[in-house]
């Protein structure tokens, strides 16, 4: 089983000199559909127990007997979500990471449409839910499905 050390939210990644990190689905076929990652993301990043506020999504197609589909942000080089946002709530930093400023978001949903992967959604308050690549979900996946990798 994977180490279960609680991941520290690290929103200041961009300020540090080290390389940008991104979340990667390393072993999708090992997923047991437990949703621990989704609850970790909402618990650690929003202080809530919620599926709506999780930036990672586990979709089961046709019930749990089907293959689970794990949807995560790909940390695009040229992020469509950033270009789509008319309010400047999503911006791309020098190191390539995408930062989301909640206060600027007015819930238009253009980013949601722009990301074909489906990595962005709106929560129940109508604000975008965007992955920070913090790794909290990685720490709570019991089956080594997820990884945080450095991006060159």
């Amino acid at each position, binding site marked *: *089983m*994977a180490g*279960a050390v*609680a991941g520290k939210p690290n929103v200041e990644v961009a300020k540090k000199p080290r390389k940008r990190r991104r979340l990667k689905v390393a072993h999708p076929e090992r997923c*047991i*559909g*437990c*949703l*621990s990652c989704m*609850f970790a993301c*909402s*618990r*650690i990043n929003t*202080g*809530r*127990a*919620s*599926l*709506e*506020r999780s930036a990672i*999504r*586990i*979709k*089961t197609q*046709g*019930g*749990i*007997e089907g293959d689970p589909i794990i949807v995560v942000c790909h940390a695009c080089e040229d992020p469509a979500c950033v270009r789509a946002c008319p309010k400047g709530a999503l911006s791309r930093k020098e190191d390539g990471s995408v930062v989301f400023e909640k206060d600027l978001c007015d819930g238009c949903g253009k980013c949601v449409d722009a990301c074909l992967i489906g990595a962005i959604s709106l929560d*129940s308050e109508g604000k975008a839910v965007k992955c920070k690549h913090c790794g909290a979900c990685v720490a*709570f996946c*019991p*089956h080594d499905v997820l990884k945080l990798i450095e991006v060159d």
Partner: protein
Amino acid sequence: MLRRVLYIDLTSGESWVEEKHDLFEEWLGGTGVATQLLLKEAPPGVDPMSPDAPIIFSIGPLSTMFPAMTKTVAQFKSPLTGELGECYAGGRLAMAMRFAGHESIVIKGRAERPCYISIENDRVKIRDATSIWGIGAARVGVILRDVEKGVGRRSIIRIGPAGERLVRYASVIVDTYRHFGRLGLGAVFGSKNLKAIVISGTEDVAIPDSKRYREVYNRIYRMVVQTDAMEKYHDLGTPINVNVLNQLKGLPTRNFQSTSFAEAENISGERLAEEFLFRRVSCAHCPIGCIHIAMLKTAFTPHHEFEVRRVSYDYEPIYSLGSNLGVTTAEGVLELIDTCERLGLDAMSTGVVLSWATEAYEKDLITPQETLGVPFQWNNVKGYIKAMENIVAAPNEFYAALARGVEFAASRYGGMDFAMALGGNEVSGYHTGPASIVGQLVGVRHSHLDNAGYSIDQTAAKKQLDPSSMVDQIIREDDSRSVFNSLVGCLFARGVYTDENIIDALGSIGITKSREELSELGRRIFLEKYRFKTREGFDLSKARIPRRFFETVSTLGRIDPETVERMIALYKERRGWA
């Protein structure tokens, strides 16, 4: 904090929500709250299948908040035993109820024609289900997934043909592979013309002190995934017990005629894991992944054309439909489990009814005329499948009797000595010693999980335990499980949820309880359940113990009826009932 009860009346089509702070304050949640709702909503002596009989679902304060707090409790008056009906299921139901914002749901009445209930947050719709009446449970799941919204966070529970046709041990299938199996909830659904419930919601749960919550969560999560407390459930799963119990001479075989099975290896957890297991999955918010799914491949032509079925397996169905029916191959067991799944029958009761019938057939208590030519023979898988279909279709009096449970069937055809039920409920797969018998007999729902007597016996096999301390342990488990089942956690994680962890977990979400308060609460909940049982006619002094238990060697050797009698007397005395 939710504290909301959703009421649905199928007769009038009305539904409403009531906030009940005091109820949850006093009884915590889960089974504690459900018992109070049942006592209040079920008129004394009500016919379990009348419109006035309620169905109650409850989750608890930790549901969806902590790992392995995954279960929902259902309470009703059992059409099988005529007293307390209670069972538990995992899957996504607890999460869906939580996010829909309902801690309990009470359903009464009877719809005019087949219906299903669609719950999305506070919006409740009772919709026509005539087009899916008669359709198997798996297929209905597929259909409703298409028709209803809420992908990924909804739960769909439904009955199969057995529930529609009021088989007294019909199950309710929860999502996929999970069940409200025992004591006939499926028949109560059927009696209300209720085919299914779909529930989903978008509420999320804000936590008062999220730092504290995260700390406690981390500790509990670590224990769940890292300690070997959970090891056996995520590796081989519960079927690990097949070989273990076989070696201990505790594996009921051919209707408890023996307790070791020469072919046990063929149907063991090891064999299934090596040759059939293809996936393990989890209930929502549980990192264990104990649901083991086998791939059953059967060729339907000699040209490599296969039917592939995915069958989830556990220890109990392997006992009841395997060793207990003398089934010698894993394929055979999986096929029988799949048939139960398709028809919506409880696997345990079905296996015990069939094993009684097989013995009765051997002893000429029942005739080929009565079985309509179906051979009731050990290991005859095809015959058993036909028999199960007949139990549901009830083409004659004999099969209609089987559909009422083993106690009823034996009262008609004889063979009471080997009709393996305790408190009217077909027994589970342990012939380990006196604690297993007494535990199931006194248990609130006559289940091995009420107080785990089988495990007390297994301890006694290693170190001396006198009947008196066995009784003490049964009482302790009765009471402490009443608390755990009010939370409503998965019993596999019981070892992780120590008193201390329960108190901290509750504390982190703003509920203060002391150890003393919890232990007092457990005792009171247990007694409240007995209040319902006694009110509906259960009498421990008159409870029947099948003689077979005393004839077949158990893990602790041959069981002396006097030991069991003494333990029951001690139990009553310590409960203050003597």
